[in-house]
């Protein structure tokens, strides 16, 4: 366990910037999002949640896969380079850290996604404990502990200091790079703050949200429940919920024809969109009810079924705050769990 003065963070990040790319929560106007931490950027580690999650750094909203050009009868295909430069993401909350593990279950299982894998290998995550958990947070429902975040290194802000604990080899190497800012700290010094965080978590509005009724093999029951009719009715099919969600993982693959060149790229897709899973024969989900159901069945049933029970929501609460129709996964969990209890 090390500690350093909080006011030294920008200098520390600048130093790291000499050997890797540095991303951190940066405030621009009224917004805080993870961005390149470059000179003059306003670091903001007080804002609890960025609008977008940091999943972009591993699964960018858009990325080119390859380009194809033709010369006479020859077609040249050039794969886009994989990420080979290290980078660090500073200040990731526990929920977003878990979200990366969930994405790993999908992208690092066979067939491994090379683009994702390369970013994962080059990426170092420094997580940050949540001193002030927010009203919409329900990470504890998924046994996530914001007082003891995971990742390559964990951090706690306590008064004017920031405590850093390396957890992996990557984390240890990173700590060496910034050693000139660090002094020894002790685990005892963070205990009080951890207790305070856990007390606050217990008082949050969703602290008793439980998944009872969702476990077990009841896929068809849940799929067919009449509740979907009621739940989806005012969904506008926009896609905010999928784009701000740290665990949403679907993408579409498209070609961009520039005339002389065809670029194949992939971009985030949303199950809320009308052409989601559109295939040559047509679409298997033709109503918003079916699309809405897909989002929640995927998170609460299909993904866990395929991944040893791992639910693909981390309780970050972003969708609770941002859906224009005030729909969200909490409402779905409550409704489905009730259904199965009776």
């Amino acid at each position, binding site marked *: 366990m090390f500690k350093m003065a909080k006011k030294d963070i920008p200098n520390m990040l600048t130093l790291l910037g000499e050997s890797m790319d540095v991303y951190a929560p940066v405030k621009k106007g*009224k917004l805080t999002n993870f961005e390149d931490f470059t000179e003059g950027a306003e670091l903001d580690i007080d804002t609890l949640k960025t609008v977008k999650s940091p999943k972009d750094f591993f699964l960018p909203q858009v990325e080119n896969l390859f380009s194809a050009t033709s010369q006479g009868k020859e077609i040249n295909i050039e794969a886009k380079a994989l990420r080979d430069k290290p980078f660090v993401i500073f200040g990731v909350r526990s929920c977003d850290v878990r979200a990366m593990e969930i994405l790993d279950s999908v992208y690092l299982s066979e067939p491994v996604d090379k683009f994702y894998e390369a970013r994962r290998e080059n990426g170092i995550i420094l997580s940050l404990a949540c001193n002030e958990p927010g009203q919409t947070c329900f990470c504890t429902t998924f046994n996530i502990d914001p007082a003891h975040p995971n990742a390559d290194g964990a951090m706690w802000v306590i008064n004017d200091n920031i405590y850093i604990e390396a957890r992996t080899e990557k984390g240890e190497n990173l700590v060496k790079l910034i050693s000139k800012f660090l002094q020894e700290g002790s685990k005892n010094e963070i205990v009080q703050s951890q207790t305070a965080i856990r007390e606050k978590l217990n008082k949050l*509005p969703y602290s008793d949200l439980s998944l009872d009724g969702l476990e077990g093999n009841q896929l068809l029951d849940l799929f067919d429940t009449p509740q979907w009719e009621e739940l989806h009715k005012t969904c506008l099919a926009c896609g905010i919920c999928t784009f701000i969600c740290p665990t949403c993982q679907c993408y*579409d693959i498209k070609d961009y024809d520039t005339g002389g060149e065809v670029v194949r790229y992939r971009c985030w897709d949303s199950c809320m969109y009308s052409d989601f899973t559109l295939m040559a024969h047509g679409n298997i989900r033709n109503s918003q009810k079916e699309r809405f159901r897909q989002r929640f069945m995927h998170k609460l049933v299909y993904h866990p079924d395929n991944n040893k029970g791992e639910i693909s929501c981390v309780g970050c609460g972003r969708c609770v705050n941002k859906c224009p129709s005030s729909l969200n996964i909490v409402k779905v969990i409550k409704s489905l769990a009730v259904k199965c209890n009776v």
Partner: protein
Amino acid sequence: MIQKQMQERAKQMLSLGEVTCVLGWKKGDFSTNPQPAVFESEKDLEDLVYDKYCAANLSKYLVELTKKEGKVLVFLKPCDTYSFNQLLKENLIKKERSYIIGIGCEGNMQVDDDMQEIGLLEKCQTCTKTAHMVFDELIGEELTVRQGDDPFEGVLNLEQMSSDERYGFWREELSKCIRCNACRNVCPACNCRKCVFDNNKYDTAQKVNASSFEEQMFHIIRAYHVAGRCTDCGECSRVCPQLIDLHLLNRKFIKDINEFYGEFQAGADTDTPSPLTDFNIDTDPEPGSVHKRG
């Protein structure tokens, strides 16, 4: 309290079979996030709420709801009735399938990331919609409508910038866009059956801003397409997760239309010809002659 009256009247109409469902706002997990909801029983209506957090414009939901048989009781605030009229004018909702109860409004609140109220919504700060433009009945004495700040102030500021500055401003703003489509889908004027940006048939589909050109194109096409039909209900700016001041774009069009063609308010009624979309072959001069006339 007006909420009680709304509940009572809705229950009465449902029980008498005068309407088949009720479109209103339902209690959320937080007092600050009531949910637009369809109520089908008197019991459900116990959860109906109406307060300063009921900002969602319910007119848009009628596009889907009035496709079905039956009649929907809908609660509309003054500004929402403009959207209703505009949708009516565009034949997208059926008047005979809806029953409008106009309700008073004292302005709605903006809510921050932690569900805390942080002052009036922009759309309410600049509200000029002083009465219900269409209704079957009104509820509540408190038909207070705010006479707000000048809605065109922001546009005037933009007009005073040099074109480079303005271009810089919009580039900065629009580069924040994550293309979640919330502004489009919440917008009552965005009601094409298949949006050009969703259309896979003609290579116009776009799920992402692949370049700064594309992020600008999405917004400029959208602004042009709703020009003359946008009632300035303010929903786009309300829902944008990246807090882009989208209303500035629409209000520029509204201001220009007012200046070029005379004052026009979309949704004020259903029969005033719209300056950009109505053309009468017998009475309107050919576009070329408008040009000559200046």
